[in-house]
């Protein structure tokens, strides 16, 4: 197909809120889900992506284009990923991890997961509750019991709630 003829093929992707995006096939097949569709020959018209909204899909396509423009240099790819994710808020990250999972893009999935984990690293319970607007629904007895159950993990650990 594309590689054989030498002309770049463009795919059209459709988000679940009906936005249409054009993307080079060579970039789009970073997604195993899309690659399978292309290989099965069902990528002729518009490819509907029912689990991804337009805003997230736009981000993902930016990523696809960006990362596929970089030659096989893991260092450079990594720094691109870091930069790409650096300004994303938590909600966007959560949407992206779902999208990456659905699109089966392991490199994005791993990077976003690591980024989300980074946000939650070394934080106290209080911070987690404040940050995510979680209401403490434990009774004091329950909370004490859960704390006791988890005590072994906290030996020698200090939390870092600065950001």
């Amino acid at each position: 197909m594309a590689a054989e003829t030498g002309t770049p093929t463009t795919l059209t992707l459709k988000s679940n809120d009906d936005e249409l995006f054009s993307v080079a096939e060579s970039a789009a097949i970073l997604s195993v889900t899309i690659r399978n569709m292309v290989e099965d020959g069902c990528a002729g018209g518009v490819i509907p992506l029912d689990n991804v909204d337009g805003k997230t899909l736009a981000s993902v396509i930016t990523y696809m284009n960006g990362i596929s423009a970089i030659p096989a240099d893991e260092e450079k790819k990594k720094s691109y990923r870091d930069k790409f994710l650096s300004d994303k808020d938590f909600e966007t990250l959560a949407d992206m991890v779902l999208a990456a999972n659905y699109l089966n893009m392991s490199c994005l999935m791993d990077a976003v997961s690591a980024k989300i984990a980074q946000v939650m690293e070394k934080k106290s319970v209080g911070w987690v509750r404040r940050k995510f607007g979680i209401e403490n629904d434990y009774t004091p007895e329950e909370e004490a019991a859960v704390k006791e159950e988890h005590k072994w993990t906290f030996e020698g650990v200090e939390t870092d709630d600065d950001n």
Partner: protein
Amino acid sequence: MLPDLCGSRLLLSLPDDIFSVITSSLSPSDVCSLGLACRDLNAVVSSDKVWLAQCSKLGIKLLPLSTLVEWRKGVLSYRALCRFLIDVHPLIGIWVHQNPELGNVVYVMPGFLSLVGCRIIPQEVGPLGLEEGPILWTPVFEIICNHVGSASFFLHGRERGDDYVYPGLLKNSSADKNCNVLLLEVEPRHQSEGGKLTYSKSFARELDNEVSLSNKLSRSCSGRVSNSKSQKMPFSRLGFGDRRRLLDVVTSQIRNIVPKEANVMLFPRSKNDFGVLYERRLLLLQMYDEESSSPFNPTELGSSDVCKSLECTTTTTSVDQCHVTKSKTLSGFLKNGLKHILRKSSVDQESQKSTSSSSRCQSKLHEFLRSGDRVGLSLRAATMKLSSYRAWPNMHDSRFALYKLPLHPSNACDEYAGLWGATFGWPPGRKSEEKPGKALFLILISYEESEGEKLMIGTKILEGTSYVLHPNGSAMFIVNVNQPSMELFPIESDGESNYIEVKRSFSGEGVANGYGFRYPGSKPGSLFVLENGLLVFMWKESRVVLTLQRLDLGELLRKGERVNSLSPISNFAYLTKTYSNVYSGF
């Protein structure tokens, strides 16, 4: 900071597998912090998926996924398993002691829901070679994971023809991943709260009297009153004799004969073994649990009783010998012996007044014993600053300890680092009916930078000769990585008329007789790397060759043959200087 109102919805809306991918980059404490936030999150982070990821993340090479899945069947959850693994995985590896000089190598590796410390016996390679003939080993200790993931320590030992286990506590701060010393200690403890109160109440009063009396006794001995809670005398600060006797007393009192059903294999050889190992583990854990929940925890022993045993060690052997196995027996022994103990103590006190030299030691010992109302055995993993010479740590010869050998990860430039088996002569360690066996050497190869040169050092950690020539930890050879040898490899075929190709060679020097035993000399030689993966060191002058092959100790031990252990303390650390094989000949 403004709360991200969608946050909890977002966190909770993530599917399980995504959540476990995310949490796999978090530490266990971070995962638990999430769980503490609210019930829903706790339900999510308590999933097996999350904790299986945590277990895999530890990256324990010897525990592949299939093993984790098998182990999971014996515990409450992957979280419980993770707790155990975090606690014990820093112990996995090769541990050594200077004595005996033939080598004291204990390989700590996974068993079944356990770690097993296996001593490699100094031995010869049989006619079948290393691959076919079983390697001889003996169990030193075991750390078993219980249902909820806490670790139960058992020292192994053999006395008067019976195999015993000596239960104790594993003292290991989970944060300490770099522990390099394992110490066998006696530890003062307080009677744990709970237990069977009805059983202990009447005794508690007696115990009170006893403690106050023994306090009075120690005060008069040391001549000062100190607050037992604020000052803690660590075991390591006691004199060698006191430490030795404390360990002797505790192991003579707190022990169990291993039931026949449990005295079988310690790790699986095939899938069919899991059933037997499962039963064995339950038996040992039952022994451990029953006793530690009873008022007289047999992993511990009343301090005053120890006082008594220590102060008249020559006269109490008969008492020591007839006990213990069951907790009831122990408590009965304590009750009945109480008056006797106190009478003895006051007599001893009289006799001690005359020997003032021992009184400082005595006061240390009393201070030690006073900081708890019982004592018990413990295995303490510690990180100490150790100096080393040519990759061999300098060790205390009076500590009941094992020292960990740093195993550098094999990266591209350190390709020969790690453990090797070696025999003198060619062909390597096998066959020839006339010569039934060759001494097996264990050699640890490491790399060191010295004066701008990169050196490869082959440290001898075990040898199977009958009488040792060079000290334990001697460098069998040191070669310069950047200096190829000018020598030709002396052998052309491998004994089966296959042509041998030499891949690389290095020049350096090999061990030789020097100034006395302690200071070996060295003579020039070359190390050859053969195409088939073997290493051969040849002394230039004598043309003697030492042939090395990579070893997978875990695999060899699984196929190995268990031999009898020594008595418990010697089985852990053999501190007497000796040049011959103390582990064989049973």
